[in-house]
């Protein structure tokens, strides 16, 4: 069976404490392979991107080959810690007879894209039938014609999507994508350490995060949209709709905190380990990660607001087993299955009816605002503005320069 986690991944995951969600694994781990394609990327073909290109489909071998290849982020699917099997995936395999090759090889949106970009541009199959990408990267794939339209007839459960996610700007009627999980970026903190450093039990604003008493003991996320979304909101701007000048002002605020030594480090997934060791007291971090750390740790959406992001399932161009992939999507839009996954990963569940199912699994989680958020909470959570490729590049440059790159 292919639904067991590979030994190596299991070992690393074990080392870093299990039961934490997907952004935990270091993004640098995959960079070596990304660099391998450096030379090959030299001449970017210039006819593929721009506008909404329709993706090419390959002959669907789903009926003859009962397999599907799925790439997801690490620790983003319910695992039976005793057997190492993905419980919900085993159920799918037993029900359909389809063998799922589940690979946790998406560690970073950019890095994963760098790995498969050449093949996509040259019109080759990337060997994956289903991938999970964050909104803005999913948008880039749709625009570039690297995603295939979903056959909703094969996904009857797609109607279970929660209304708020049913339409997104980059994929209006959800033709290409279905959300996997959503999450907040906001304030995470170590409660006892916070208590001794500044006499508080919780952080509620970025003003507190940038308080001198936490100098050198806070980290920010290297994911630009999450860090800058929180700072833009803190500065009183709308992260879903802002101007260049507003962004630059937010960058100046960030630079000030970085240069003063207030910010210890800007990291990908590393902040969790740093919080656990006590080196870092407070962070801008991801909800599911922080919550999974346990009682001594707290997460809050800042008063000024945080960001809301979604990771989406999509089918790459020329995927060989499109139909099987659609069956997988359908399986995870079954409220019972969705509740099982949500109970494990602690992120926002995109499936209507899962909350009712969660009552049966764990009543406490059914009322958890970070899995099933209230509308009051969602009012303070911004989806980051959709950027043109040019904006994306110039904002990224400003951001990376501010954090030392």
């Amino acid at each position, binding site marked *: 069976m292919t639904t067991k986690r590979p030994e190596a991944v299991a070992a690393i995951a074990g080392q870093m404490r299990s039961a934490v969600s997907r952004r935990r694994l270091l993004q640098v781990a995959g960079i070596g392979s990304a660099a391998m394609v450096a*030379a090959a990327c030299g001449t970017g073909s210039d006819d593929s*991107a721009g506008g909404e290109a329709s993706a090419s489909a390959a002959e669907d071998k789903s009926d003859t080959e009962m397999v599907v290849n799925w790439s997801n982020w690490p620790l983003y699917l319910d695992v039976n810690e005793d057997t190492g099997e993905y419980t919900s995936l085993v159920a799918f395999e037993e029900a359909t007879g389809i063998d799922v090759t589940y690979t946790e090889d998406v560690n970073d949106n950019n890095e994963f894209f760098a790995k498969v970009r050449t093949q996509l541009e040259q019109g080759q199959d990337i060997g994956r039938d289903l991938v999970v990408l964050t909104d803005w990267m999913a948008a880039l794939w749709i625009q570039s014609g690297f995603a295939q339209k979903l056959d909703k007839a094969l996904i009857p459960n797609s109607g279970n999507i929660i209304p708020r996610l049913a339409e997104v700007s980059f994929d209006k009627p959800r033709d290409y994508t279905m959300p996997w999980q959503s999450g907040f970026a906001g304030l995470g903190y170590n409660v006892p350490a916070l208590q001794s450093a500044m006499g508080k039990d919780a952080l509620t604003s970025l003003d507190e995060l940038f308080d001198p008493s936490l100098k050198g003991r806070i980290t920010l996320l290297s994911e630009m949209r999450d860090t800058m979304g929180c700072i833009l909101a803190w500065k009183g701007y709308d992260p879903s709709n802002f101007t260049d000048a507003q962004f630059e002002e937010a960058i100046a605020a960030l630079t000030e905190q970085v240069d003063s030594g207030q910010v210890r*480090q800007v990291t990908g997934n590393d902040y969790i380990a740093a919080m656990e060791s006590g*080196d870092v007291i407070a962070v801008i971090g991801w909800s599911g990660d922080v919550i999974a750390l346990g009682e001594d740790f707290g997460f809050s959406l800042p008063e000024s607001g945080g960001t809301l992001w979604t990771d989406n399932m999509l089918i790459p161009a020329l995927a060989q087993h499109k139909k099987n992939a659609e069956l997988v999507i359908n399986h995870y839009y079954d409220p019972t299955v969705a509740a099982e996954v949500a109970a494990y990963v602690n992120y926002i569940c995109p499936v209507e009816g899962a909350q009712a199912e969660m009552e049966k699994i764990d009543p406490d989680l059914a009322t958890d605002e970070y899995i099933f958020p209230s509308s009051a909470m969602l009012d303070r959570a911004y989806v980051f503005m959709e950027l*043109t490729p040019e904006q994306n590049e110039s904002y990224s440059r400003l951001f990376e320069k501010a954090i030392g790159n």
Partner: protein
Amino acid sequence: MAAVLPSAGKQSQVSAQRKSRTGYFLLLPGMTWLAIFFAIPFVTLFMTSLQAPVAGKSGQYVPAFQVSNYPDALAEYWPQFLRSFLYAGIATGLALLIAYPLAYFIAFKVGRWRALMLVLVIAPSFASFLLRTYAWKTILSDEGFITSFFNALHLLPDDRILNTSIAVVAGLTYNFLPFMILPLYAALEKIDPRLLEASNDLYASAFTTFRKITWPLSLPGVVAGTLLTFIPAAGDYINSELLGSTQDRMIGNVIQTNFIEFRDYPTASALSFVLMAVILVMVFTYIRRAGTEDLV
């Protein structure tokens, strides 16, 4: 090869030519290897570094001869360049200070435990580079005994080691230490102990013997070790990423960011090329200075 003497007859000229042709054929596998693993990537990298962006299309580049990529990249990133060489230089110096006595000890003092000692030196390399560096995060943690010890002595400007330049340099030193120890050991082990006896016999004390005999004879190992340590250390980004702060970014981090975040392949390539060129120049100057050509 196969030079033809003026007096040689026609027949021998023909056979000499055939011989020289055979010689070239024998070179073929080596040349192919070089072409595949060195020349082609090298040329591709160079050509990429001169590409120009396509207007209005981010992440798209066309072949061009945009030499300005180089000064632009340098103007933007010279602090990271300097920092890389500074950190790598300090780490190399520290590695030499640690590795030399250790290699000396293994080569001359441990006798039959040599093999075991060498295995112990290399053993950490069996674990992933990444995991080893992660381990240092724990070791250098604010609450760890090392940081507490130095803090008790009030030796740390930021009251911490992790996420400072000290941690980055320490990480570089640790991670590349085997590359220093092994060539040093190889060089020291080759020294005939009778040379040391001869020096001793010729009125040189142990210290003078080290200065006049052991050290000069180990120079090839010192040169190889410092190069093998300095070169990867200068291009490394993991130690800075995991152990440093935003103030400790090195050129490797910048190349990575340009490559993956910005998809700015020309800048990333130009930076790689400059890094390569600078290291090459330094290596040649260094080797010439060290005067090891006739030693090796």
